[in-house]
């Protein structure tokens, strides 16, 4: 699904979740699989919108910095995403919220991420800690 947009997705993902920079290739594959699976259950039009938005994020910085998103440093990437998040145009805010949600799902829905942040819920409940 992300063959043409993998670099863009990863650049945005590492801005949304800085810890994602430490992901291995296999962990990235898990992130992408989770996102792709979520998108596969959505209408095709929504999937197209996500892809268009990814490419929009890639090109937008050309107007201000003369560089594509993937060529920006961390601080400028964050500025671009923040500009989108707080934008006066609702569609841009909505696009950013949706993309951010997919990335957070891809990253935090992995058991390894839950483990890393210390999330320890267990079906055994109190028995697991007493």
């Amino acid at each position, binding site marked *: 699904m992300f063959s043409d947009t993998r670099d863009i997705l990863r650049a945005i993902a590492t*801005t*949304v*979740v*800085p*810890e994602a920079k430490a992901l291995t290739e296999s962990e990235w594959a898990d992130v992408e699989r*989770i996102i792709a*699976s*979520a998108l596969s*259950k*959505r209408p095709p039009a929504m999937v197209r919108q996500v892809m268009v938005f990814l490419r929009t994020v890639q090109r937008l910085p050309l107007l201000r910095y003369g560089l594509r998103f993937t060529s920006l440093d961390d601080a400028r990437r*964050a500025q671009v*995403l923040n500009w989108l*998040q*707080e934008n006066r145009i*609702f569609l841009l*805010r*909505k696009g*950013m*919220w*949706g993309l*951010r*949600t997919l990335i*957070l*799902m891809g*990253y*935090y*829905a992995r*058991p390894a*991420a*839950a483990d*890393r*942040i*210390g*999330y*320890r*819920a*267990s*079906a*055994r*409940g*109190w*028995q*697991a*800690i007493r």
Partner: protein
Amino acid sequence: MMEKTYDVVIVGSGAGGGTVAAALAPLVRGGKRVLVLEQGARIEDHEFTGREIEMADALYEDGGGFLTSDGAMTLAFGRAYGGSTVVYTGTSLVAPERVIRQWNVPGLTHADIAERSEKYKQQNSVHLLPPEEINDNNRLFVEGAAAAGYHAEQFPLNVKGCLGSSLCNLGCPNAAKQGTNRVQLPAAERAGVEIVTRAHVQRVEERAVIVDIGAKRPGQKGRESEWQPGEYRVRAGMIVLAGGSIGSTALLLRSGFGRMLPRLGERFTCHPAHILVAEHDRPITNCVGHPKSYFVDRAEGEGFVLETCMYFPFTAAKNMTGFGAEHSSFMRAFPRLQMILVLACDRAVPGNRIRVDREGRPVVDYTFTNETIEALVRGTRASARIFFGAGALRVHAPSARPRLIQARERDRLDERIDARHFIIGTTSVSAAHLMGGCAMGRDATDSVTDSYGRVHGVPWLRVADSSLFPDALQINPYLTVMALADRVASMVLQESAEIAGAMRI
């Protein structure tokens, strides 16, 4: 198309449908045939793994990510044998008297709702958890509320043998929560009521429903459907819709009932909610123990209710507004996090409604009124006071800029948390108390049904779910849904002789 005939068909198996199914079981003993059609699957006990995405996909519509038409709010509702009662936390409150009075539905009294609610509290083993089962996340809420001048009350819960997995919203892995999947539906089946899962009702026709039975896809959780996949016409003397606010309303709309029921789809409310997060200086018990044991009710006057809560990594991350280092720092502090759910008591207003698109899929239009936004902001300020009263170091507030509020700023909360920072499309808002769409009232000029869920002008069609609410309930709706469904069923029982007559024709 295959054809089947029943005396009563119930669409949906949640708080409404499950209640009606069990209440109509005496009809089966009298020789009648009662059928429940449930869109979701019958999940096996061992399939409740507590894994976030896996369970959300199995138990929620759109995996829990159903969005309002403008994409600004996420609506969560269950889709399984047991409906949303599989995924709620089991909080069991009786409808406030003032709300039922404000609804002003002819023939509906608070005394009747309260009496029926008590019956289901008994049936569902509702009780208060003992102190030793209250975790730190809840204890800190009580302490913080007291320090901030609020009165925290304990939720009565419908659990039996709760181990404190904290996984209620992903379906209890220990079968402790007494939803309709554990109580009313099994009782109904034992009495001879038939329940068919993976049954998507496409439309309602004259004394019949057209239903698609889906096949289980590879990797999907749950049993195969009880019927062979395919399209069926199921004839019935009586049809009771209990597919929830969105499900029942959309079904009636795509069946063409909007022409005779001009109020169909209106009066949608949902208690829009923020999940607020605060960090303490030490680990607390939060991912163990029942997650929702206490609440602060400020609905009357201030328009909000605060509830304890504890969500899973992705849900928590998604509901915290923003991204980047600040967002991540809270996520890394998970073992030290306290959470509060702020619910706004929104009101039914024109324009907030359910409709269907050209394919008949439900669409929810929702605009945040200034009153709703102000209620969320007031609730956020109150939560911040509670967090700091409990000793939190810092609070993440969606309606603040910057969103991170340090303890030293606790005296500036009115200034720091402000409605001007509530930005639709940026600020994360979600809702799980979906109400209205087939509101009760006097006649078709002001409503869709009467106080017994009888659809105006259609004697064989009833509604028995939260779509009946003419306005927000201001508490968790499930017990009131059961009370109303019990009321609907009692009228169906009274009219059972009439049903038999219709079937003979």
